[in-house]
């Protein structure tokens, strides 16, 4: 418990606090939320102070990109393809098939690209971090780092969260591009739309107000995915069973948080850009 705060010296108790009279389920939930918030606070406390682990940050960026690159491309491509195939007949029915590129473009850039990529990364990166840090905790590798005079929070957690936060928008951009390519293939072979026409239509329909919120929320997706994965792994105990549980709950919580962030992002974007 005390380790979450990265400072083993602080301990505090909540005996006799009104908080202890809450139903246990709610109490556990609130405790968990509190711990994750403290963990995030600790991240911000460490991220601005030297020593900075640049090498490890680069290494983690590479890991994040490399681990999810193929999966994100594949799912993005199929999503673009399938979306076009499914929507096309309805659009033909309404005589609005010429709107296909703009519609698919907006759907992918605003919503499907970021959320799909985030969910894939929650499954791939979030669980990976949970399992990796969890097993490092259980086999005392994190303690070993600490006794060798290195701050393991900084080396392991800060670099991972930062790397995922920076890499996710890039993955989203890549996924968007590949999805649009998939959708273009459908339009090209079914509707004989040329490459130039298709992408001119797509870019004409997209505005700055589409890209900014989508990219901004991708940063937050990356942050919550790595935050939850690292939190679960870094604080896992109870042996190897705990490692499995850490990986599993990391995915579940990160996926839910992705949707919550998405919801808030839409509300906020609505205020600023009057969608």
């Amino acid at each position, binding site marked *: 418990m005390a380790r979450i705060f990265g*400072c083993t010296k602080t301990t505090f108790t909540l005996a006799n606090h009104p908080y202890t009279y809450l139903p246990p389920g709610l109490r556990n939930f609130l405790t968990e939320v509190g711990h994750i918030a403290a963990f995030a606070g600790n991240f911000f406390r460490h991220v601005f102070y030297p020593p900075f682990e640049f090498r490890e940050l680069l290494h983690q960026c590479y890991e994040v990109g490399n681990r999810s690159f193929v999966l994100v491309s594949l799912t993005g491509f199929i999503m673009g393809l399938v979306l076009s195939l499914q929507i096309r007949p309805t659009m033909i029915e309404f005589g609005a098939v010429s709107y296909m590129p703009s519609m698919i473009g907006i759907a992918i850039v605003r919503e499907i690209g970021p959320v799909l990529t985030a969910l894939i990364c929650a499954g791939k990166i979030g669980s990976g971090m949970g399992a990796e840090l969890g097993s490092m905790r259980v086999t005392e590798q994190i*303690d070993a*780092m600490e*006794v*060798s*005079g*290195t701050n393991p929070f900084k080396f392991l957690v800060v670099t991972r969260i930062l790397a995922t936060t920076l890499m996710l928008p890039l993955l989203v951009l890549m996924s968007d591009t590949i999805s649009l390519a998939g959708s273009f293939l459908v339009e090209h072979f079914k509707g004989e739309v040329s490459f130039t026409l298709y992408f001119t239509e797509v870019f004409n329909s997209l505005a700055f107000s589409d890209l900014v919120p989508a990219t901004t929320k991708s940063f937050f997706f990356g942050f919550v995915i790595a935050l939850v994965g690292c939190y679960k792994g870094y604080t896992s105990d109870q042996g190897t069973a705990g490692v499995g549980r850490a990986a599993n709950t990391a995915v579940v919580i990160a996926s839910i948080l992705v949707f919550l962030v998405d919801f808030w992002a839409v509300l906020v974007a609505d205020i600023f850009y009057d969608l």
Partner: protein
Amino acid sequence: MNTLNDPVATASSAPPVAVGAPLIHIRGVHKSFGDNHVLKGFDMDLFPQENLVIIGKSGSGKSVLIKCLVGLEYPDEGVVEILGKNLLKLSQIELDELRTEVGFLFQGSALYDSMTVRENLQFPLRRHPNRILPEGEETMILRTLESVGLAHTVNMKPSELSGGMKRRIALARTLILQPKIILYDEPTSGLDPITAKEIIQLILRIQAEQQTASIIITHDLDCARVIANRVIILVEGINYAEGTYQQLTSNRDPKVQAFFK
């Protein structure tokens, strides 16, 4: 390696060294986990160049005790002084500096398994560049690996090594910062008797060469007999009995005798 039974090669044949100010000085250390009172007023001193063995039953709090010496656990009560500094009052930077003087060999080796052996040894060096000798990082790594007899594993991953090899690499990783004190948490557990003897010889050799002081936690009485200048028996959270190995074997107390039966 068959020098193990040769009295000249064993440290216990030497008189206990209790000279100079203690490197580690702990008094009245209490530590509980919830209702589980693990340590209940433990006292101990470690003197320069001494090999102090701590024996105790499984779960008696031996690992907790030595974790308190490097700030991995904090005692609820008591005094912990390492190299004259009060561990409980150090800033994070001072603590990290002090930690380079105290090597810790974990019960399960705790090698970083995403890194090669070279990177495992590089890790502490890169973080404490002031500890890199003029001979250079690479030479230091190879020399330290050689001193544990495993120079050929330098490019391997920990998963490719046996348990005994991992233990020795972990020892090399500890040694590379040239600590003044080394804490061994069950260095021979889970190893076959021959490998265990090799590890014991290695510990003795390192102690002789580098003049370090060590605390060795063990279940292995052979190990205790060969290594110890002094033995502390940890029972019920306190230092129940203390003395040389020979003194303790002739101690009539039933709880002490239970260890030597």
